[in-house]
């Protein structure tokens, strides 16, 4: 029964290939092409592989290390135990397995990194495109605001914001998102200006296209690849910033994050005690994730750039 169903569909398609479905096939094809050239970047593949692995670990954390791994009252070990077969990375000051915490920490770091980058990119893209598309005073005002944010030392502003709001993961996300968008906005604006200078924009306007038509149909798709590459870079720095804020004690102390673990380790005196198994893994984890995103971003950028012609 099902076979006949599947057979009819392909026979229909070549007869009357709706432009839409063909376009979709076309999109798939260009994705495949993208993937082919992406595959050529060995470091990008490494980054992607690591990311997928870490994402899986984060998603299946409760299955992997048990859902009570973060509990202090049910902590299985003694305080600050060294690595052993039971605790491959030792325990923290409450006797919880550092490895298990590391696994849980991935959730926060990835969530914060992704959401903060999304926030930053969303704000930055909208403002950048609008400021680049329109001329006149509102563009000037937007760019002044952007410049203002840009001159604020990012970390200083993020710390200030995290201090002003109450300690939670959302605060950190907002603090990072709100302080990093100007970079994206500037980049998007520059790219918008260069796209707007292309003749096809003139053509679209001569065809009667409105501002929103030009911005959504022409500028946005041409800015997106750049933004995509930029996003991965932002994720990586958002993860670092999250760790920094957590390290400064500006995140929610009841949530386990890698930066928070480092802070806990330091507060517990792991540095003096030389408890490397507590101190080293969170830092390495942060570095690996940040590096993975950066590698992916660079690979994406170099795949997209030649066609984009940003530089030409």
């Amino acid at each position, binding site marked *: 029964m099902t076979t006949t169903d599947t057979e009819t569909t392909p026979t229909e398609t070549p007869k009357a290939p709706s*432009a839409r479905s*063909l*376009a979709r096939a*076309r999109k798939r094809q*260009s994705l495949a092409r993208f993937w082919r050239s992406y595959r050529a970047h060995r470091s990008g593949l490494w980054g992607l592989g690591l990311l997928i692995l870490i994402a899986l670990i984060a998603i299946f954390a409760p299955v992997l290390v048990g859902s009570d791994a973060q509990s202090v009252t049910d902590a299985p070990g003694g305080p600050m135990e060294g690595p052993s077969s039971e605790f491959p990375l030792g325990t923290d000051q409450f006797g919880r397995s550092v490895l298990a915490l590391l696994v849980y920490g991935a959730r926060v770091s990835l969530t914060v990194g992704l959401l903060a980058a999304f926030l930053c990119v969303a704000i930055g893209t909208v403002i950048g495109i609008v400021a680049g598309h329109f001329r006149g005073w509102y563009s000037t005002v937007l760019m002044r605001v952007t410049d203002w944010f840009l001159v604020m030392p990012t970390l200083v502003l993020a710390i200030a914001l995290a201090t002003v709001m109450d300690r939670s993961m959302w605060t950190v996300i907002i603090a990072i998102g709100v302080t990093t968008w100007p970079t994206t906005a500037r980049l998007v604006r520059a790219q918008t200006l260069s796209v707007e200078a*292309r*003749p*096809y924009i*003139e*053509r*679209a*306007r*001569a*065809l*009667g*296209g*409105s501002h929103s*038509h030009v911005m959504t*149909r*022409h500028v946005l*798709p*041409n800015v997106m690849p750049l933004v995509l590459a930029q996003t991965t870079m932002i994720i990586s720095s958002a993860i670092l910033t999250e760790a920094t804020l957590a390290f400064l004690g500006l995140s929610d102390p009841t949530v386990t994050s890698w930066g928070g673990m480092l802070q806990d380790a330091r507060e517990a005196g792991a540095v003096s005690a030389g408890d490397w198994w507590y101190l080293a893994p969170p830092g390495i984890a942060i570095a690996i994730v940040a590096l993975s995103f950066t590698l992916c971003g660079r690979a994406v950028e170099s795949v997209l750039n030649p*066609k984009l*012609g940003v530089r030409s």
Partner: protein
Amino acid sequence: MTETLQTPEVSKNARALLSADQLHVTFPGRRGAAEARAVDGVDLDIAPGEIVALVGESGCGKTSLARTLLGLEKPTTGKVTFAGKPLDYASKALKSYRKRVQLVLQDPSGSLNPRHTVYDAVAEGLRIHGYTGDEREAVSNALSRAGLRPPERFFLRYPHELSGGQRQRVVIAGALVLDPELIVADEPVASLDASVRGEILALLLRLRDELGLSALVVTHDLGLAWNIADRVAVMYLGRIVETGRVEDVLTSPQHPYTQALLSVLPEAPGEPVVLTGEPPDPSRIPGGCRFHARCQVLADGRADEAGVADACRTVDLPVLTGAATSQVACHWAAAGAEDSGDSR
């Protein structure tokens, strides 16, 4: 509004599909520089079914004029009239105007969004104007009319998969899909290979013949004008200095500038007149005849002989009318024309 007041003008341009009337376009100077009078008083009519070539050297204001005719630039003074009605710059009105008048740009690679397929590029106009009929059908038609056959083969290509000539055809198809009455083509073949050019020009001619399309072709290539245009307008520093039927203007140019332009063509007979100096600067338009500083006729004393040298330097010339008659804005030609008329 002021219907009564406009009536005489409407009747004046009644024959023209599109006409420019005392058009001035001025760009503010950057960082304290003087403003640039890119278009400095132009009258030009384009009749239905007519191909007009606008020629002139770089920076003389051809593109600015073309853009103003399309409503992409607002004239500083003067007005554009289409089908007897002055152009309305309200966004709704402009949109419907742009359905009837289309633009084709010099660089076909740049005129196509690299992320849109051929189908999308051609259908864009339909979508903007909320076309209700069969979009696919319309796109196919336009593509085949532009010489891309069978059209289906090209639907899903991206611009970078097409050759330059094909791209320009796609751009033209994108313009044709809305059934326009007039096409403004700004150097439509300048970026194409010599061997491909002819095909595109032939297409424009065919469209005129088949659909009665009018066209304004902006170019700096006089050979192109000879190839396809009915009428030619020679522009210098923001103003049309000579206009008339192609056969007249290109075979017996009256204006020294036109003469110079023709003389430097490789196959032109006689000694080429190479004008010295740089392309003129629209932010510093000289008084008198705007060409006098570079004018070979003035320089070699022929103007003096004709007794117009002073006029050349000091007396402004009137704006040529947009009508189809042969006209020239030159003191020397005005004086000399009588002479030659006599001698003949």
